[in-house]
């Protein structure tokens, strides 16, 4: 059974195997296909047009399916590997073990933002940024630039308390749990974490940074936590909504999976703590 663990609890061996599986996906070219897919949706999902991966109710089931697909790719390299999650309310500084050289490496240097330590530093020649929005081919970060702060547990709790999954107009202007978790409105959880990391994580090609998966694994866990807290609430909208993925509609790019299929994560994995 696939158990997703808090990254802070991983053993040295678990970290090494996770990193090695990432590097092998990168070497084989499979990694970059995920970056391309994500950026394509970032650029095409619009508030008043078709929207699937972002700024819409299907933000959560779309990323759940996307992470499952990525986790399957990792496990095809090493079946012992699962996606860890980063609880950024707890591990909230650049001194966290997440950013150590034996795991993701640290922040970028002042001159050009280049990450210079850890397995994903350009100097190691194993992590070239190929799918990119500018000319630089090295991983960049600027952790907590400008004194930015990651969301607090209290801020997460205030969003988890929202009973309604999502509301019309089903986009970045919506009230409800989904848009507050995504961050276009209110205290801002998910979006703010992308900005806090900086570098490629602030761009449409954000999966270039491996922390993308750990961030989204935690966002995904917060959805599971919300479901456990509000068992009578469910995915909305139910049917007949223009430009938006209803509960039973299939989602691009897979076209064979619906939000309804994604509601129960325990069909695919569990978490190290009860959700």
């Amino acid at each position, binding site marked *: 059974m696939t158990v997703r663990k808090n990254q802070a609890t991983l053993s040295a061996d678990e970290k090494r195997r996770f990193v090695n599986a990432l590097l092998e996906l990168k070497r084989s070219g*499979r990694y970059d*296909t*995920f970056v*391309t*897919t994500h*950026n*394509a*949706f*970032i*650029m*095409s999902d*619009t*508030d*008043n*047009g*078709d929207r*699937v991966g972002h*700024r819409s109710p299907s933000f959560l089931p779309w990323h759940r399916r996307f992470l499952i*697909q990525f986790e*399957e*790719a990792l496990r095809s390299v090493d079946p012992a590997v699962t996606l860890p999650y980063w609880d950024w309310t707890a591990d909230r500084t650049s001194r966290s073990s997440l950013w150590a050289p034996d795991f993701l490496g640290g922040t970028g240097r002042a001159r*050009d*933002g280049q990450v210079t330590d850890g397995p994903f530093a350009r100097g190691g020649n194993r992590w070239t940024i190929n*799918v*990119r*929005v*500018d*000319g*630089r081919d090295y991983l960049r970060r600027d952790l907590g630039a400008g004194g930015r702060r990651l969301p607090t547990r209290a801020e997460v709790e205030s969003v988890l308390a929202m009973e309604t999954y999502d509301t019309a*107009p089903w*986009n*970045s*202007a919506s009230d409800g749990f989904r848009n507050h978790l995504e*961050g*276009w409105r209110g205290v801002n959880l998910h*979006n*703010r974490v*992308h*900005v806090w990391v900086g570098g490629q994580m*602030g*761009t*449409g*090609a*954000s999966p270039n940074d491996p922390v993308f998966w750990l961030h989204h694994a935690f966002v995904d866990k917060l959805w599971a936590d919300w479901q456990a807290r509000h068992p009578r609430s469910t995915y909305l909208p139910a049917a007949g909504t223009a430009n938006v993925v209803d509960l039973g509609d299939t989602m*691009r*790019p*897979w*076209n*064979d*999976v*619906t939000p*309804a*299929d994604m509601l129960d994560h325990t*069909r695919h994995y569990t978490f190290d703590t009860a959700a």
Partner: protein
Amino acid sequence: MSSITRRRALGVAAGAAGAAAGLAAAGSATAAAPRATAPAAEPAPASFDEVYQGRRIKGGPSHGGDHHGGHHGGGYSVTIDGRELHVMRNADGTWISVINHYEPVATPKALARAAVRELQGAPLVLLTLA
């Protein structure tokens, strides 16, 4: 429940197609005709043309088709040194770009300036989708 189970079974079977299939579908998604994203009530922001930190940034209403593979600025385009920056207008009238995607700013000019600061002199690369 049975239909969900059946769909899930199909999904597992289709999983082998994996990322390659996903790529193809995503590519076709962006090839679709762009839609205006700006709320009808919002006036178009002013054009601008300036040199900011040594880079020529321009913005203004765009005319004609979607010749750069899918921009959704609601009829407004932004360039940095002549290369198009993919921009998008949010429902509340704020703006984001592919460079600063998760942090809305008030105007396209502020967006162009934020992108210049982020680029630190690097050229924009137009993403060509598979």
